[in-house]
């Protein structure tokens, strides 16, 4: 549905987007992830024909953004970072205006306006001035505006920014429910959002593509396989963490044991297994057979956050170092 090849955008002095290539198949939700200033907005603006790329090509629904901008625009719904609302308009009136801009008219327009109001739960503010709406409502009107002409592709620039947790959940659910019939790209710098809503992730940093993969693969890729945390306690009030560590390391399939902390006779270990090995049962047995108590044991999937920091890590470290030097 969306095909991006070697897309580049240069401003006077900086390169905002540097030879990015990716593909988004039809009906998928793709998370566009990166720290602030990574080039997310610029890329989205090029996809929506707001600005042309310096070099490279992008096609949306088979139409090139440079050659056929009108065709692309017809098929795209776009929610910019700040929802493009006219404060002096009422919600319903604004949606009718946008609908007309996108080529709707008559009964179809009326029906679509009613539909998106229902869908984005903004029916109760339909006759309110946009300038008087709260942030959450503004964001939802922005979303309603983006889907009014039932576009094939939805491009959402930080759709949950500035919302409260309940609104964030509602917005995520709404976006998820739109997938399938729409292809969606959403940008964010909030990682759990991607984990919860997206099937695929595109990570960019400083204008360069860092990784593009499914959420699950990325998590798996960052570290070996299973990762387990367990808490062991000694029976008679003392515990040699070194001995425990040795014992645990001897369990087959374990690749790394790390003692994270020890308080009196209790110690927490983080254990990584080799690829494709399930070691939880063996670990539990080893602990109990050695005469210790097994207080807790749980698998810890690596969060995308860690993946992200790992992938963009060097930059972060440099930034911290630079700050410290000031």
């Amino acid at each position, binding site marked *: 549905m969306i095909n991006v090849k070697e897309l580049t955008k240069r*401003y006077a002095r900086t390169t905002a987007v540097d030879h990015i290539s990716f593909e988004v198949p039809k009906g998928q939700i793709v998370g566009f992830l990166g720290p602030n200033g990574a080039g997310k907005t610029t890329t989205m*603006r090029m996809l*929506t*024909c*707001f*600005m*042309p790329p310096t070099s490279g090509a992008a096609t949306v629904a088979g139409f090139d953004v440079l050659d056929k901008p*009108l*065709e692309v*625009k*017809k098929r*795209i719904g*776009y929610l*910019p*970072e*700040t929802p*493009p*609302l*006219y*404060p*002096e*308009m009422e919600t319903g009136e604004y949606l009718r*205006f*946008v609908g*007309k*801009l*996108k*080529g709707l008219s008559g009964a179809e327009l009326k029906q679509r306006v009613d539909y998106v109001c229902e869908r984005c739960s903004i029916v109760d503010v339909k006759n309110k001035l946009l300038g008087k709406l709260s942030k959450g409502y503004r964001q939802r009107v922005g979303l309603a*505006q983006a889907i009014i002409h039932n576009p094939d592709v939805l491009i959402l620039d930080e759709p949950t920014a500035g919302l409260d947790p309940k609104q964030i959940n509602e917005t995520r659910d709404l976006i998820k429910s739109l997938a399938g019939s729409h292809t969606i790209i959403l940008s964010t710098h909030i990682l759990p959002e991607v984990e919860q809503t997206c099937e695929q992730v595109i990570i960019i940093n400083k204008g360069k593509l860092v990784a593009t993969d499914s959420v699950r693969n990325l998590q798996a890729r960052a570290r070996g396989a299973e990762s387990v945390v367990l808490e062991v306690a000694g029976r008679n009030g003392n515990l040699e963490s070194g001995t425990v560590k040795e014992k645990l390391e001897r369990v087959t399939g374990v690749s790394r044991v790390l003692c994270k902390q020890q308080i009196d006779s209790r110690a927490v270990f983080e254990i990584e297994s080799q690829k494709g090995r399930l070691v939880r049962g063996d670990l539990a047995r080893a602990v109990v057979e050695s005469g210790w108590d097994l207080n807790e044991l749980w698998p810890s999937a690596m969060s995308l956050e860690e993946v992200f920091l790992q992938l963009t890590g060097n930059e972060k470290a440099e930034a911290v170092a630079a700050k410290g030097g000031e």
Partner: protein
Amino acid sequence: MRNAWIICRKELRSYFVSPIAYVLLALWAFIFGYFFWVELGGFLRYSMQVAMRGEMYPMNLNEQIIRPLLQNVAVIGLFFMPMITMRLFAEEKRSGTIELLATSPIRDWEIIVGKWMAAMSLYGCMLLFTVVHFLFLFKYGNPDWKPVVIAYAGLLLEAGVMLAVGEFISSVTKNQIIAGAATFGVLILLWVLGWVSSYESATWATVMSYMSLTTHSESFMRGVIDSKDAIYYVTLIFLGLFFTARSMDSLRWRA
């Protein structure tokens, strides 16, 4: 064209939903009312003096009231134009709504012409206020209507140029104040450019005088349609809108 019409209606709505249109129209009506009252008073006093002296001096409503008043309309209009155009693009750029327009399936020129038409319509409303006054002259006097119509056509053409220039300037900045002030400055310059020809007759002075807005309004004010002047106005309107289009384009390339 349908899209230009949608944009035009939206612009007109924002003029009339906000106080902008009402403040401008009220001020305009008040100022023009004052001018009309003064001109009419002068005319009555003069005609009384003439009658008392028993002279048969020809009195003419067209020459003595309508023409000077419409010339004043052009001058007052000069002050109002920047206020009409300053927000056209500057506001959209500041609030980010330009992203909606630029990513909708409409062409740049449709946006530009739509906005210009809305500005013209607002000016048209202002002109309607002046028409009301002249209706009294037609009721109680007997002026010739044809030169009046031509003078109004001239006013509209002249305003078309000023609004196109203002729209262009509004499209190069995010700041409405800057847009308004710059428009005012440029329009004043265009207005007085011809004054130099009063003492200088070199070619450059003739050229400057030709470029001036006022040089070309005289024929219309006299009730004569001079194709040279009409072409001048139409050309400048196109030029202003063309530059606006280029400016919108450059937004995309620089952004």
